[in-house]
Structure formats: structure tokens, C-alpha cells
């Protein structure tokens, strides 16, 4: 209704051509897909659980001192595998470091690497998917084959080889190398999703109308095609964020991710693995934090996708 009214008003008494039918009235607007999804989401227990967990993890990464953790770098060998006490509620690890403090401070690196890598993947996926889907033809053929090649290499193998090469400098703590590795390898799903939803929406009537009104490719993509593809794209990126955090921990565990004095759940798990028979605590706690973090992001993505997918209603 509102669109028609806007067109009618524009073509009204002044006799001008219908220029831009995009100033819709905000009142009595029919509920959009996003509005529908939000109403669904508000009722979802999984969504709220995930949202609260994500909030806690973000707080942990930004302000670790809020959680009353001590100094994670203060390690005294005399306390090796010491029992829990008032200040270190989870006890001490092999090096005599406070397990609770190390676990809390580990959130920052995980989240930082995960977010930046997802951002890189998102940008690459957006550009590749959008141009492949919009322009089609030979560009699409080349980009799609390229995606096939990247998908043809098992992910962890490629990540290990690439991270190993990028982190050759012994002085770096590996954050940059891991971020680039995960970002460069993780964009394929995002690009595929983008491409298929662009192809689905580029032949719609409203896009044809906008093209007739003289919009160029950039404007068509940004204003008319992209908004309809964002929902599934964001869902993919949320889940990717979860898997990126898991991959960072895996690479760190294998000794080619974060290293040196960087604090990472993966490193903690790897170090504690050798003493699991005598002191399982330093292994268990970072494992739980890592698993819950990954779970939170995957649950969030899952819940949002269910809300946006009308087929599942």
C-alpha cells in the first residue's frame, strides 16, 4: 500500500515523473521479514541463552578485571598444581599460574582473533559473492571454480600449512598470522550464500524497476539487492565466528597458532594435556570455557536462522 501511495503522490498534481518511490511512510507498515523474525526470536529460549552467554564472553574479553581474576602472568613454580584457594578458585597449573585468571584472560585473544578473521572472511565473501552473483557470466565461472578449489583443500590442513608459514617470525605472538589464516580460508561459505541470494533477488521486479529508473550497478547492489541478502549472510558469519574461535584454539593447541606469552585456551589445553592423569583441572576449565563460547555463537546463529527461515515455521 505505502509504495503505491508514494508513487501516486509523486506522480500527482505537479505532473512530475515518479522519481524515487523509497520514502515509505513508517506508520501502519506491514511487518517486514526482520520484524517477523524478531517476534519469533523474542520467544526463543535458545536465543536468549546464547545472547546472555555472548554478552558475558564479550564483557570477559573487554574487562577481565570485572570477574575478579588475579594476574594470569604471575606464575610461581612452588605452587605447581596447587589446590584451589581463596584467590585462585580453580587452583594452579603446571607452571604455577592461576587457572581461573588464565581462563578469564584467554577470552580476549579468542574473541579478537575470531572477530577479525570473520570480518576478513565477510569482506572477501561479500565482494566475491556479490560480484559473482550480480555480473554472472565468465566472472561467475572463474570465481565459482576458485571457490571449488579452496573448498577442495581440507580446512585444517590448509590452515596448518598457512599459519606455519605466516608465523615464521619467532618474536611475534602469532595473533596476526592466525587471524589472516582463518580470514583467508573461511570466506567460501559466505561467498556462496551471498552469490545465491543475489542471483535470487537480482531478477525481482523491484530491481528491474530501479534499473529502469536509472540506477547504476553500485547503487542497485548496495540499496536494492544487498538488504535482501543480509539476513542469511549475517547468520553464516555468526556461525563462522564460533568455528573461527574453535579453529584458533585448535591451531594454538597444535603449537602453530598463538604462541610465546600469548594467553589462549588452546595453549592451556595443550599444556595441561600432558599432566591429565595427575592434574585434570587445568585441562577441564579452559575446555569448558572454549566449548561454551563456541556453543554460544553457533546457538545464536542457529536461532536467528530458524527465525528468518519461513520454511521452518
Amino acid at each position, binding site marked *: 500500500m505505502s509504495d503505491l501511495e508514494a508513487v501516486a503522490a509523486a506522480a500527482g498534481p505537479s505532473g512530475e515523473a515518479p522519481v524515487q518511490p523509497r520514502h515509505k511512510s513508517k506508520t501502519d507498515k506491514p511487518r517486514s521479514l526482520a520484524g517477523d523474525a524478531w517476534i519469533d526470536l523474542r520467544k526463543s529460549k535458545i536465543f536468549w541463552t546464547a545472547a546472555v552467554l555472548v554478552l558475558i564472553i564479550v564483557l570477559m574479553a573487554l574487562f577481565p578485571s570485572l570477574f575478579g581474576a588475579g594476574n594470569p602472568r604471575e606464575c610461581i613454580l612452588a605452587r605447581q598444581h596447587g589446590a584451589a584457594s581463596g584467590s585462585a578458585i580453580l587452583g594452579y597449573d603446571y607452571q604455577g599460574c592461576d587457572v581461573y585468571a588464565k581462563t578469564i584472560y584467554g577470552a580476549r585473544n579468542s574473541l579478537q582473533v575470531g572477530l577479525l578473521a570473520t570480518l576478513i572472511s565477510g569482506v572477501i565473501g561479500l565482494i566475491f559473492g556479490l560480484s559473482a552473483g550480480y555480473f554472472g557470466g565468465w566472472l561467475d565461472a572463474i570465481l565459482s*571454480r576458485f571457490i*571449488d*578449489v579452496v573448498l*577442495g*583443500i*581440507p*580446512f*585444517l*590442513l*590448509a590452515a*596448518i*600449512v*598457512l599459519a*606455519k*608459514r605466516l608465523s615464521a617470525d619467532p618474536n611475534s605472538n602469532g595473533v596476526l598470522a592466525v587471524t589472516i589464516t582463518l580470514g583467508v580460508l573461511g570466506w567460501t561459505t559466505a561467498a556462496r550464500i551471498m552469490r545465491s541470494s543475489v542471483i535470487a533477488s537480482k531478477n525481482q521486479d523491484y530491481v528491474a524497476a530501479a534499473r529502469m529508473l536509472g540506477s547504476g550497478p553500485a547503487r542497485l547492489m548496495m540499496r536494492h539487492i544487498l538488504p535482501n541478502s543480509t539476513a542469511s549472510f549475517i547468520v553464516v558469519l555468526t556461525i563462522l565466528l*564460533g568455528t573461527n574461535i*574453535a579453529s584458533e*584454539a*585448535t591451531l594454538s*593447541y*597444535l*603449537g*602453530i597458532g598463538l604462541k610465546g606469552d600469548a594467553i589462549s585456551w*588452546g595453549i592451556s*589445553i*595443550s599444556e*595441561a*594435556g600432558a599432566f*591429565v*592423569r595427575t592434574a*585434570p583441572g587445568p*585441562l*577441564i576449565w579452559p*575446555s569448558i570455557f*572454549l*566449548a561454551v563460547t*563456541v*556453543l554460544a555463537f*553457533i*546457538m545464536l546463529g*542457529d536461532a536467528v536462522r530458524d527465525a528468518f527461515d519461513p520454511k521452518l515455521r
Partner: protein
Amino acid sequence: MFRYIVRRLLQMVLTFFGATFIVYALMFANQDDPLQALAGERPLTQNVRQALTERYHLNDPFLVQYWYYMKGLLTGDFGTSLTGRRIGDMMTQAWPVTIRLALIAIVIAATVAVVAGVISGIRRGSLFDNVTLVITLIILSLPIIVLAPLCQLIFGIKLGWFPPTAGAHPSFWALVLPALVLGSLVIATELRVTRASVAENLRSDYVRTARAKGLSRNRVIGVHVLRNSLIPVVTLIGVDIGGLMSGAIVTEGVFNIPGVGFNLFRGIRTEDGPLVVGFVSILVIVFLVVNLLVDLLYAALDPRIRYE
């Protein structure tokens, strides 16, 4: 169909060379001085240096070196690792172990996933269904570096049901726990796909017809629904192979299984270029061939699928 296979084979060739080239370049580019690394502490005379340079084609351009390597690889000559062992020998020892491990993992995962997936697909919204969905979500988000040490701790050490590590010649029983850990990587997706396709097929016309003909419930589900629901699950196995091989790197390390992942991981740590490139090349080939076979199997199982 024939054209499809040819196109896929060409694509595989492209992927194979792309992947091996990237790995080769990353492992061998900007090496300091491979000859000195080979000699260790001892000084190299000029003559030896020259002879070795010629033997290993070190003065040739990078692409020519890659060509020589691929020529060896395709004729079955993988070269020697930095420790002096023949990589071909290492592979013949490592592959059977990993194949056994992967087979046990796939069988366990597929059995559990199909049984549980069919039950929760039939009883959608029931308690069983909801519990299964939550469990798959948790399994889906447990990284293998969390799952493997924890399972080793709980089932291997605390409860003592399984041997905590496998050792040089693992028995079937020693491989069950690692296979369970490895299979958990794929069990969640397989279960969800089974559930979704059972639920979809239950609503289809041919199931209604079968019911209307008066067939028993067991026959409708066991024959009509199950056979059609398993088709997408079969195709998933192809995708799973890649995940299993990646997961094997961590799992074989934790449980001390001398398979492909174990060797590969050690090779990466010690920067053993020939070993890594050799193993990765074979892994990529396996991955590509399995995926092609699965896609062809898909067409054979489902007559509605036709490749142009």
C-alpha cells in the same frame, strides 16, 4: 552423464594442481639454505655443494622445481623425508591405520545418526526429539581438542573402559574410543539431515498412498521413507571425509595412533617439507575422488537426479 564426469575430472585436476602448488610453495619457498640444513653442523665443500645443487635442481626456477616434484609424485616416487626414511614406506605404514580408524568412525557415526535421526524425524517435537537436538548442538560446538582429551580422561583413565592410548599396532578395541571422538565430528550433521529428510518424506504423496493402500507402519517407514531419506545422508559422507581427515590430526596425536594425521602433524612441526607435501597431496586426491564417487552414487541412488 559422461560429459558431467569429464567436467568433474577436469575440475579435479585443476583443484589437485592448485592445492599441491599452494602447499608446495608454502613449504619450500624462502627456505634459508636447504643444503646446509641437510649437512647439519659440518661444513660443505664447494664440489659437494655443486653436486647436490644439481641433483636437487636447486638452481632451476621455482616452477621447474615444482614440475620435477610432481613428476616424481605421479610416478609414485615421494622422495625421502628429512629424517632419511622413504616417504612411500611411511605412507604404507600410516594409511592402513588411518583407514581403519576412519571406517570405524564412519560406521559408528552413521549407525547412531540414522537410528536417532529416524526416531526424532518420526516423533517431531517429542521429548526425544528435543533432547537429541540439544545434544547435537552441543556436539557440533565441541572442538575436537576439547572432546579428545576429555574423553581420554573420562573413559580411558577415570572409568578405564578403553585403553587411553593406542600405541604402535593398535587393536580394534583401542581404536574404538578415538573413532567415537572422530565420529562425533560428523554425527551431528548426519543426524540432523536424517531427521529433516524423514520429516519431509513423511509428508510426501507416496507415503500417503502407501498408507492408503493399507501397508503396515513398519513397512511404510522401513521401506518407503527410509530408503528415500538415506540418499542425502550418503552424500554427506563425502563431505565428512575432509572433516575426518582434519580431525585425525588432533585425535591421532592425543591417542598416540601412528596414522596419517600423526605423521603429518610431526612433519609440520619439524618443517619436514617433502613429508608434508607428499601426505597432503595424497589426502587431497582421496578427498577429491571420494567426493566424485559420492556425487555419482547420488545420481545412481536417486533417479530424479540427472547430471547434464
